[in-house]
């Protein structure tokens, strides 16, 4: 149906050109060659998502090649044309070497520079190009001895445009086209299924260069002369315009875009001078209102309801994987002087589930990133079977049989579920295996959260890996879905894959793992069978911090005041599935309230929502009588509610003093005395007053963050994981500081992994699990209750 429409359109164009007068012939020719350049750029911009503002360079190369060959060397046009295409393509591949290694504005700069170099070479290389005067008298091509004329060139251009469009159609449906779209959607995910983004981007760049070169080659005999003034920067912009206005990535897009760009100025002949102005406005309008261009608009308006194709349910057996053991030895990496992982060794055997657990900031994702090739370790080795993989590029590691899923699912959003699978080399049987029972033609970006996870796992399995790395796959899932996921992971292991799982949900981990490895502050502190690890005192200390809790004196009861902070039915979170599902809590004046729970339960999301960094989707937050539910962060601060955020978040390039001063940004009064108070409270900061905050140790930065928060003289303080990543001795000092604060009757809401410590400080506590409050009461009661241990370590 669509093919017929295109055939008719091109046929009509040829018929029209064969009979129209020379003015229209020229228009049709220009339209056709603009379309050819557009098709090429569509491959680069539309399919692969790379920008170029310098394609006039290839256009010029094509034009000058033909001009020089036909005028000076007296070649036939038909021989010169492929040479022009070849030269443009070769230069394109060469330019791709630097160009495709950079992105965004940097890529734009490289392509712009290229365009200017070509334009200026055309002016300066007078011996070849004729300088400013250019080359005159480019002959019209002849075919079989008969003069072809302008009409002939126009018809040839239309035929070539049809060929280019057909070529685009074939490419778009081929594996290469799918690979290009994959690179556009997510280079990371593309690498993880074994695609080399550099090679793909280079191919796209070369193809677009060839098309622009062919367009230029046709331009030369059409216009009869070739001068540098035809090859300015604005011509590159026009090519980009053609693609965007027509509709990036669509088949008809360049044709529609070329028609608009070429015909509109002619149609509005009186206003032809204003065409650039008009195009600028049109581009802006398209970007605002119809980012998919004209064809995108038409598609949206004429979209018919598609019948969903549901994946057949049923038990599917996975063919046995290529079995291999993952051996990791003494792996280590440092970032900016901080050792994120050190001497990490582990062994994941085929057919077994090996879990990697540890507190937040322990380095689990860092280890996974090294295993999958995302980071290059600076020490140690990674072996799968007998192949050494450390330091290899991610796509090579993927091809060696290591597949991976990500904390935030990296699906190819613009492609369907089926296409996501197909490009990884698999079909619907993998979807059946993971029990995805949805529509195979659904757009991946539109899927609900749990389905995205399943499809990502299915796609990873489709690459027939020996090792499957999973990064917190259970995050954000309901209890029921987590249990199904756990069973799925066990089935995957049973088929022979070595499963490596990073996960916080202890129920999932302890239920299916053969080996559990515990990471803390970048080092392994325990490894073995689940039952042994659960009983290990070092592990309990790392998670619950009970040893140091005895240092805190029991609290002398101070009368709590009126409710300061009220949170009701709060639902908030990122993406489709809210992490918080309905939270109720209250903090009264002079109280210290703790919120505890496993990672991923929603503690930080809760703090960010209260502080105004995250807008809740439901429910309400009230502070000191004011409804702050929809208030942005900087206004919440002004009301006296200050968050000391997770991870310290100091301003690394500013001095300690400047950080403190910024803490008082919202205040209008004099702050010198308060700074003095802070320095007395945290004496180590005085020693470092003029040092850059980024150079301070973790503990010092945490003190600074708290001091900075206090500078605002808040009515209430929110503390998000202050002990994160701190050594146990430093944690002692930290909680001593917090102890002093509560003695001064500060009002505090505290979230921390060190449950034992937090409970020793707090008056009351809430326990969050799965986005809801599952327990609340006096701190002593919660401490005595077994529900905490259950939430954290899944001990029964």
């Amino acid at each position, binding site marked *: 149906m669509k093919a017929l429409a295109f055939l008719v359109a091109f046929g009509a164009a040829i018929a029209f050109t064969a009979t129209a007068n020379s003015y229209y012939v020229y228009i049709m020719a220009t339209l056709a060659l603009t379309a050819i350049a557009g098709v090429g750029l569509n491959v680069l911009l539309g399919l692969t998502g790379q920008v170029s503002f310098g394609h006039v360079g290839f256009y010029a190369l094509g034009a000058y090649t033909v001009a020089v060959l036909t005028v000076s060397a007296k070649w036939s046009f038909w021989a010169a044309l492929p040479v022009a295409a070849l030269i443009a393509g070769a230069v394109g591949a060469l330019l791709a070497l630097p160009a495709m290694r950079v992105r965004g504005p940097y890529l734009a*700069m490289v392509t712009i*520079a290229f365009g200017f170099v070509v334009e*200026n070479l055309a002016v300066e290389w007078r011996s070849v190009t004729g300088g400013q005067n250019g080359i005159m008298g480019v002959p019209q091509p002849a075919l079989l001895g008969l003069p072809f004329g302008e009409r002939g060139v126009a018809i040839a251009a239309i035929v070539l445009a049809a060929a280019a469009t057909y070529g685009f159609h074939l490419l778009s449906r081929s594996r290469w086209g799918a690979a290009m779209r994959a690179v556009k959607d997510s280079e990371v995910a593309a690498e993880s299924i074994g695609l080399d983004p550099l090679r793909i981007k280079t191919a796209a760049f070369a193809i677009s260069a060839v098309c622009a070169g062919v367009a230029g080659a046709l331009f030369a005999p059409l216009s009869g002369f070739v001068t540098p003034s035809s090859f300015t*920067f604005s011509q590159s912009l026009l090519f980009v315009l053609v693609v965007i206005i027509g509709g990036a990535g669509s088949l008809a897009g360049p044709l529609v875009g070329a028609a608009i760009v070429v015909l509109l100025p002619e149609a509005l002949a009186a206003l032809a001078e204003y065409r650039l102005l008009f195009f*600028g406005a049109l*581009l*802006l309008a398209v970007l605002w209102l119809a980012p998919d261009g004209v064809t995108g608009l038409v598609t949206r308006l004429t979209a018919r309801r598609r019948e969903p194709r549901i994946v057949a349910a049923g038990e599917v057996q996975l063919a046995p994987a290529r079995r291999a053991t993952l051996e990791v030895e003494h792996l280590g990496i440092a970032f900016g002087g901080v050792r994120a992982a050190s001497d990490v060794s582990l062994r994941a055997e085929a057919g077994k589930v090996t879990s990697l657990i540890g507190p937040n900031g322990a380095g689990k994702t860092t280890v996974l990133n090294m295993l999958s090739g995302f980071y290059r370790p600076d020490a140690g080795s990674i072996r799968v079977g007998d192949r050494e993989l450390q330091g290899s590029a991610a796509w090579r590691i993927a091809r060696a049989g290591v597949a991976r899923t990500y904390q935030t699912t990296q699906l190819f959003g613009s492609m369907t579920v089926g296409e996501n699978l197909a490009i990884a080399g698999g079909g619907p049987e993998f979807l059946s295996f993971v029990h995805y029972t949805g529509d195979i033609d659904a757009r991946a970006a539109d899927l609900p959260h749990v389905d995205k996870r399943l499809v990502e796992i299915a796609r990873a399995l489709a690459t027939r890996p020996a090792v499957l790395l999973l990064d917190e796959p259970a995050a954000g899932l309901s209890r029921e879905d987590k249990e199904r996921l756990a069973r799925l992971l066990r089935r995957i292991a049973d088929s022979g894959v070595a499963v490596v799982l990073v996960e916080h949900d202890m129920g999932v981990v302890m239920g299916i793992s053969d080996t559990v490895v515990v990471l803390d502050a970048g080092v392994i502190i325990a490894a073995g069978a689940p039952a042994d690890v659960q009983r290990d005192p070092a592990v309990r200390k790392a998670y619950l911090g009970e040893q140091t809790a005895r240092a805190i004196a029991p609290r002398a009861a101070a009368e709590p005041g009126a409710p300061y902070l009220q949170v009701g039915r709060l639902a908030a979170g990122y993406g489709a599935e809210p992490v918080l599902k309905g939270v109720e809590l209250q903090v009264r004046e002079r109280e210290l309230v703790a919120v505890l729970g496993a990672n991923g339960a929603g503690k930080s999301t809760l703090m960010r929502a209260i502080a105004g960094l995250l807008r809740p989707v439901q429910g309400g937050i009230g502070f000191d009588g004011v409804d702050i539910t929809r208030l942005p962060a900087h206004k919440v601060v002004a009301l006296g509610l200050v968050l000391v955020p997770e991870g310290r978040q100091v*301003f690394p390039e500013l001095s300690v003093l400047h950080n403190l001063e910024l*803490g008082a940004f919202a205040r209008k009064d004099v702050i010198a005395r308060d700074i003095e108070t802070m320095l007395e409270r945290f004496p180590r900061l005085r020693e470092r007053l003029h040092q850059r905050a980024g150079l301070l140790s973790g503990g010092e930065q945490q003190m600074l963050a708290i001091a900075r928060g206090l500078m605002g003289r808040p009515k209430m303080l929110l503390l998000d994981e202050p002990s994160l990543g701190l050594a146990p001795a430093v944690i002692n000092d930290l909680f001593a500081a917090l102890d002093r604060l509560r003695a001064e009757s500060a009002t505090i809401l505290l979230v921390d992994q060190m449950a034992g410590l937090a409970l020793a400080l707090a008056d009351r506590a809430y326990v969050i699990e799965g986005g809801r409050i599952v327990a609340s009461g006096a701190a002593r009661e919660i401490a005595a209750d077994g529900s905490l241990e259950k939430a954290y370590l899944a001990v029964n």
Partner: protein
Amino acid sequence: MIGSALVSGLGLGSMYGLLALGFYVTYAVSRTVNFAQGSSMMLGAVFAYTFAVRLGWPFALAAAMSLLLCALYGLVVELLAVRPFASRGSNAWLMATVALGIIADNSVLFTFGKEPRGLALPSASASLEIAGLHVSMLQLAIPAVGIALAGALHVFSRKVRLGKAMLAVVQNADAARLMGINVPLAITAAYALSTLFAGAAGIMIAPLFNVHSDMGTLFGLKAFAVAILGGITSAWGVMLAGLLFGVVESLITALLGSAYTQILTFTLVIVALALMPNGLFGRAELKKV
């Protein structure tokens, strides 16, 4: 010859640096830039010409008014071409700012006319003898003003409240919000500042290059190269890169003739980016998955 090339190179270079500072300010605060910075520069010159020559205002007043209008233009750019896309996480601001630049250039073309106009500064023709070279007051003033503005930006970001706030946003936008800093306002202010700088550059360079609607394009693109090469992470780095670029360009022109200036400078840009994809002074941002 080398001497005068150095002098004019410093002048040109500080203009590139000034434009590049505009790129730095917005990129640092919002990870976006006004890709058509050259148009802002052109507007500065055109406004100054309109007020000083067409309307006969005293030059200081004309310059001040022109700078005000340039700052307003920055607000327009942020509101129309950046905010609608950056807030959605889309990269379309790159082309939207280009589109706005095309509109600005062509609007000026049709109101101002195609003929380049001269903007004569009263003191521009006076000259000094320095180390045996004839240096015009303007050629002295340009780098002086450029470096002074860079210095002022430096002081502003360290001593003035709004400046410190903007610097904080650079380093940690979320933490800045938690200090009570209005980040969207900071971004808008950054854009106004960047077009202000560009306008200032345009006003100063107008007497040397004549005023016409196209004057900014090449300048702006070279300034973008400067910003990128300077790593877009530090004000002084960018200014230094600008001065270097200007001097290298002038030297190439003096030694090899102007024919090869554009070719060599742009080729050097490509080579530099090939070797250092994060710019000369930049650091690779840590990838997070």
